[in-house]
Every structure is written in structure tokens, then in C-alpha cells.
């Protein structure tokens, strides 16, 4: 079926072009120039923006789910991501931001660096229900992110950093703390675990003799940096005293297959706080 439809369409085009090679050359030159102009224009346009919101974090933390909830107003089921998702979100005040969801797999998470330079905010998504089990791995990832933020050139305004204690609904609340809001509980747990693990990393790397990178020319700063703190706690790592800037925390949860309606249910606040945080970003 498809063939007879295509053939008559293709034939006149090729025969007309073949008849006059000059026309072909001229046309192709014109198209080429047009393409260059358009691509340059688009590139300039996209670079001048710098209002990207980056979603980073370990795999299975829920980055893609949060992105789909924000963009499609419903939480689609998701698998481990293989590549970066980029979507545009229109906020209530008619501003648009670009949301970039960087996969969390260790082998591809370095794609973060490609997007960091035009990031307005970095949202580090953590699975609050499993963070106490794999805290070390999460901290390693967060360390990389912190390091990347602090090693941005000083002229660059550092992006706001938000740590999202996601899946707060899966957190098992003990009888004693049942009264506490699950979001708050999730935030506390994530903060405690990450501070402990990052402190471990900081201690281990301070004063350690590292191994030179192969063929490193010295322009690359050491991997260990990025955890400097100054404050009353004597240099030990606290998010409140981190030198790279302010760190905020939020607790969220989404339910797969659910549609986000205007009126949120009473139980969990879902991601409404996150949407609000995005609205309030300068």
C-alpha cells in the first residue's frame, strides 16, 4: 500500500532537480544558509535563558515521576531512565521553566555537568524510604553535585539547591511519631542520614593524599572538594553551614497512576509544596 503512494511523490521531485543541476546547487545552498541561520538563532535563544531546573539524584528516587507529575499533571509509571528528559513547564504566573531530569545511574549521571551552567535551581531527589539503607551511595552522588556547584566559576550565580525527601508516604511511621507530619519526618531523616554520610566523606578526604589522575594537568580540582563548612560546629558538615549556598528541604510524594487535581487530598500534600517552591523561584 505504501509504495505506490510514495513513488509518484518522489519522482517529480528528483526528475525536476536532476534536470537542472544549477537549481539544485542554488537550492541546497539556500537551504543550508537558512538552516545555519535558524540553528544559530535557536542556540542563542536557548542559551540566553538560563532558567533550567535540574532534577538529579540516585536511581529510583522518583525524578521522572516528579517530572511527569509536574508536566503532565499525572504520575505515569516509570522505569530506570536511559537518557535525559527535558520538558517545559508553565507556571501559574505564565513564566516558563525548563525541567531537566538527569538519569541517576552512576554511569550516566555526569550528564549533569552539561546542564549545570544554565541551571536556575538544582533539585536533588532522595528516596526517603530507602535513604537509611543506601545512604553512602546517595551521599556520594550528592557530593558530586555539591562539588559541581562549588566549582562553577565565581562570576556565575550559583543555582538554588533543594533536597527533596521524596516518597514520604512510604515512610513507616512509628506509633510514637504518628502525630508528626510524614513530610517533616522524611525531611528529618534525609537530613540526618546525608549529613552523617557527607561528614564521613569530608573527614576521610581531608588530609588524605590522593592519587593523581592519569594525565591530569592540574587544572582539575581534586574530587574531594565541595564540602567546606564554616560555622559553630567546627567545620563538620551541616547543610545549614555549607559554603556553597543555602540548601532547602521539602518532602513530597506522588502516587502512580493518579491524576493531580486542583484540590489536593487531605492526607499527604503531594507535590503542591514543590510547585509552590517553583513558583517562588526568582
Amino acid at each position, binding site marked *: *500500500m*505504501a*509504495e505506490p503512494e*510514495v*513513488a509518484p511523490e*518522489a519522482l517529480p*521531485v*528528483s526528475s525536476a532537480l536532476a534536470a537542472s543541476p544549477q537549481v539544485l546547487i542554488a537550492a*541546497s545552498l539556500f*537551504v*543550508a544558509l537558512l*538552516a545555519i541561520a535558524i*540553528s544559530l538563532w*535557536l542556540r542563542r*535563544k*536557548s542559551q540566553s535563558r538560563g532558567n533550567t531546573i535540574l532534577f538529579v539524584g540516585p*536511581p*529510583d528516587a522518583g525524578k*521522572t515521576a516528579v517530572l511527569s507529575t509536574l*508536566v*503532565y*499533571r*499525572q504520575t*505515569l*509509571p*516509570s*522505569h*530506570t*531512565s*536511559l*537518557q*535525559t*528528559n*527535558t*520538558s*517545559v513547564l*508553565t507556571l501559574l504566573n505564565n513564566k516558563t521553566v*525548563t525541567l531537566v*531530569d538527569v*538519569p541517576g*545511574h*552512576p*554511569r*550516566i549521571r*555526569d550528564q549533569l555537568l552539561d546542564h549545570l551552567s544554565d541551571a536556575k535551581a538544582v533539585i536533588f531527589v532522595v528516596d526517603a524510604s530507602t535513604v537509611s539503607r543506601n545512604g*553512602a*551511595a546517595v551521599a556520594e552522588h550528592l557530593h558530586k553535585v555539591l562539588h559541581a556547584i562549588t566549582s562553577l566559576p565565581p562570576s556565575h550565580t550559583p543555582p538554588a539547591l533543594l533536597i527533596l525527601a521524596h516518597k514520604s508516604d512510604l515512610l513507616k511511621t512509628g506509633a510514637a511519631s504518628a502525630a508528626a507530619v510524614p513530610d517533616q519526618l522524611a525531611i528529618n531523616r534525609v537530613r540526618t542520614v546525608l549529613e552523617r554520610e557527607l561528614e*564521613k*566523606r569530608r*573527614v*576521610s578526604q581531608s588530609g*588524605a*593524599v*590522593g*592519587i*593523581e*589522575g*592519569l*594525565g*591530569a594537568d592540574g587544572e582539575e580540582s581534586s574530587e574531594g572538594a565541595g564540602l567546606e563548612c564554616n560555622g559553630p560546629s567546627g567545620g563538620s558538615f551541616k547543610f545549614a553551614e555549607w559554603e556553597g549556598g543555602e540548601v532547602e528541604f521539602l518532602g513530597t510524594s506522588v502516587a502512580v497512576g493518579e491524576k493531580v487535581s486542583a484540590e489536593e487530598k487531605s492526607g499527604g500534600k503531594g507535590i503542591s509544596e514543590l510547585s509552590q517552591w517553583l513558583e517562588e523561584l526568582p
Partner: protein
Amino acid sequence: MLDHCSIFHKGGLVLWSRSFTPAASQLAASSASPINWLIRDALIEGRAAEEKYEKDGYAVKWTFVNDLELIFVVAYQRILQLTYVEDLLASLKTVFVKLFQPFLTTFVASLHAVNNRAVGTVNGSAELTTWNFAKAFEGWDTVFDQLLKRLEGEAAADRKARLRSVPRIAIDSESPGSSDVDTAPTESPNMAQDEQQIARNVQALKNRLRGRGGRRGGRGMARTDSGSGRESYPNSDSDSTLKKKPKKVQRKWENGSITESDMASLDYSSDKPNDTDAQNRGSLNVNALVDEASLGTRTKDGLYEVKDWDFGKNTGDADAVISEALNATSKVPATSGSMGALGSIFARLTGSKVLSEDDLKPVLEAMKQHLMKKNVAKDISEKVCEGVGESLVGKKVGGFQTTNAAVRQALSNSITRILTPKTSTDLLLSIRTKLSSPLSSTQQRLPYSITFVGVNGVGKSTNLSKVCFWLIQNGFRVLIAACDTFRSGAVEQLRVHVRNLGMLGMNGAGDSKGRVELYERGYGKDAAGIAKEAIAYGRDNDFDVVLIDTAGRMQDNEPLMRALAKLVSVNNPDKILFVGEALVGNEAVDQLTKFDRALRDFSSSGAVGKGRGIDGMLVTKWDTVDDKVGAALSMTYVTGQPIVFVGTGQTYTDLRQLRVANVVSAILSD
């Protein structure tokens, strides 16, 4: 049969999925689903060209649609030999893309919203409400069912055709048992009914085509029964018991031996015109089994046509699409070929050039040769290039990017992925974590132990001493266990190293006597025992790290490999480093696979189940290979483990960490 089927975007969002068993649907929802493992272990590591992936008793097969960035995955129990899965994937791919192309294009564009055009499509407030995925893919369930049914039917028919050639008895015993034509219990009852009806239609069609037009004999009936599988069983069974009460006495239910006459009476697979009972039964059941409403139409030539399946409003053409997909997959390249070279140039200029397998073949071949020139093992370069090809076929190359450049870019990405470690390579941190981990009061702190393994003469002892030097610089007390009790001079070599290291001092200040010691028990002893004693000695004398030097051995020497596995299982070291030289070519694959497998197989004697494999690699003699650093790629590809250190010279400070970007550029440089 199938356990799970899923269609998802490369970014992770699932467009459609279905689990066929409750266990599978539970598993699919968790992060440990076989599909997630497939992505993490195979697709991200550049193994996309492999045929299937197995994990936890599941076999997973997949296929890509690169221009829409979709992945189609089917998971099933590994023990089943499902022959139709590949056909199913291929036809799912074609049909799904055909049916939902416009929606999918918008969807993918919304995930690549970098330019204004995409902003426009996603932006409008009206657009937001139209992201109704359930509605967009409605009807697909039915199409999927039909497709699956058809392929399963074909597979079953295939099997039957093969069985028919063997003696009759085999058929008799087989046809009642062929209920595996049936899908696993599906989730909704009305779906089951659909399948039943489809099966009937298919069966009716088959019978017509076989030239048995007109009245259906007993044979057609019996086949329909067995063909429609489990769902139809209770139905037809009750029918027949109602209709022929007197016959019921003859039925024998015991499991005793089957006599010839039993077989004959149970044999409905051939025409028995004399058997009036069967004839009656047949005519009675025909009405029950062929639903008047869904009866097909008869064309002028007398050909019976199955009625089009009612998919709902928008999918009326699904049947046509399916049949087209099933028998005309080879047409696709032909249409692009008709455009000719001029058309392809034009397409490239307008930025819509779609890469075909033929375009890629020469470029990939050249890339493969290039990788092999860089000392990447042959198998590995083939697999890497296949994986790259897999991810590029069907992709559009924009603007002025040549095929060559696109392949180069994809290859560079793929190599970077393979080389980037997936586990932490921070040895210092893991040593410190172990040393500071809380202990119960009865336990004594064990030192962190690292075992160096490898073939002969790759530099295990030399690089062990370099690692030792580095650890001393970081303030650890290190014990070296001389477990090479075979090669003469091995212990003396280590003794010299320990003496040197003791005199070198830490951070340039003072000597580091007491920071490093050698634990030796001479030659000819059992290495596993010496290592155990060394760890005990280290524990009692407050050492932080024990470095275990083992004798070099060829990977094929099973007694020696067993001895090594014993050392590992007895002492359970924290890290097992494989030492390999950068000079190695094709041999790297063999060495690593065999070391890894031997360690896993032979050290898994305990109840722990899976044995330990290699945790990381140390590549030595890096300074001798210039930019032919392919061994690094081969090694990481084979094991999936990171290269922890690189040895680059003869002095204690010649130990480096791998920089992925450097290696990638070295491999790709001309």
C-alpha cells in the same frame, strides 16, 4: 506464558505495560523489576546488541524504535522456550508506532523541549488537559491481545505441524495437553472472552481455508476445543456432558494405562464420518461455539472472511495494520530506497535523513577496525559497535552531521558509559568506613583486606607495593601477606619492598618503620592458610590494611583457580583486585571471564549462594602502550567493574587513577 510486557520511552516513562501474573505485576512495580535490571545492567552498559538478558529466572527481550526513542520489552520465565517473542516484539513495534505516531511524536517532543517550537506545543493551557494517556492508548489493549493470540496460535500450529509428522499416538497425547496455547490468566474476564472469540474466528478461518467448507466434521470441533485453550474448556465440557448423558458411563478418569480402544474413543483428531454421535455433537456445538454476532462474512469467491474485530472507534483499521505489519516488514527499506541518492542528499539537507542499517554498516565496520587497532579485544569491539548501531538505526541525523560523525559521537558516549565506574572507586573512604564502623563488644576489628590476583608476570607484587606506599602516605598501618608460595624469589621480592617502604617514610618526615610489615611463611605452604594467619596477625597487632599477594596463575589451570577461590572463600577479603597488563589484547576477555567465573563458581560452596567475583581492576604497564589503551575498555566491558588504579612506571609513586575522558579521547584519536 509471558509475564510482563512494557512499552516505554528511553527517558523512563512507561506508555503502556501489562503484567500477566500477580507476582509479575508486583515485581514490575518495584525497583527490582527485571526491566529495571535490564536497563541498568545491559542497556546502560552498552550491551544493547545482545539478544536477551536473564535475571532472577526471567528472560527479557527488547527492541528499540530509535526515532521515537521507544523501547519495547517482553519478560517471560526463563525456562520457557518461547519462539514467538521476537516476532511479537517486531509486530508490536510496527503496529504501535503506526497506530499512535502523532501522539508519540508530540509526547517525545514534550520531553525534548529545548526550542520554542516545542514550547508552543506544550504550552497552551488546552494542551495540558489533553495529556490523557489512558485515552490516547485506548484500544491498544485489544490490539495487543489479538496480536499475541495470533502469534501464539501460529507458534502452536507450528508445533502441531511438526508433531503431525510423527505417529498418531503422539498427537493424541499432545492435543489435549496443548493448553499452553492459552495465555496466562488475564486480568479482566471480558478480555478472556475476547480471546475466546478471536480463537474461534481464527479456527473457523483455518478450517475454511483447509478446503473443508460446508459442514464441519468432528475433527474441526475437537481442534477448536483444544485450540481455544483453557477458557473454553469448562464451557464445552459442560455442553458435552449435558448432551450425551448415556455416554458418560464410558469415561474413565483413573490414571491407569490407556488401552488402544480408549485412545480411539478419545481421538477426535481425524474425521469419523461413521460416528453419528460425534456428528451430532459437532452440529450441536457449532452453534454454541460460533457466535452469530461475530460470524464473518463470505466473499463472492466463497472465501470466508473473519469479521473485523471491534476495537472501539479509532482502531477500525487495526487489523489491516496488524496484517501489514506481520507480513510486510521488508517493505520499509524499499520505500526509502526508491528516493534514490538524490533524495537522500535532499533529506540530509533538510535534516530528516534517517539512518538505515545499510548506511551504518560501513561506518561501523571502520569503527570496529579502529577499535581493534587500539588494542580493544575483537569480541568487545564487535559488541560495542553493534550496540552503537542498535542505538542509531532509525535515528534522524540533523543538518550537516554526517553518518560518520553521528556514529563517532554515539561511540564516544557508549565508551564513556562503559568506562565510568558504577560503584565507588574511593578506596580510602571504604577503608575508613570499615575501620570506623561500630562493632559489638565481643567482636574484634578486622583489618581491611585486599587480594591481588592475576596471571603470571603482570606486576602483581610491584603494584601491590605501590598501593602499599599510597596507603602508608595516608597514615594506615599495612601488613603484606606473602601468599605467593610458589615462584622462587617472590617472598624475597616483597621483603625488599617492605624494607624500602619502611625507610621511605611518611609524608617525607621521618621513617615509617612499624607502619609496614611482611607476613611470610616461606614456600610451598597453603596460601589460604597463610592469608588467614596474616589477617589474624594483623587484627591482633592493630594493622589497618592487609594486602594479600597471590601467585600468578593461568586462567585455564583449574587446580590453581580452585586454590585461589579457596583463599577468597576462607578469608572473604574486602576487595579482590584483578591485575592485568595494558599490553593484553584479545586475551583480556578470556582472562577476566575465567577468573571471575572461577572465583564465583568455586567460592560459592557456602550457603551464601553466589560467590564473590572480581571487585575492580588494576591495569599495569600503562606507560608501555602509548595510546593503544583498548585493554581498559575490554576489561571494564567484560566485568562491568571499574579500573581502580593504573600502574605507569617503576617507582612507588607511579600509580594513577583512571580519567575516563582521557581514555576515551585516546581510544578515539586517530
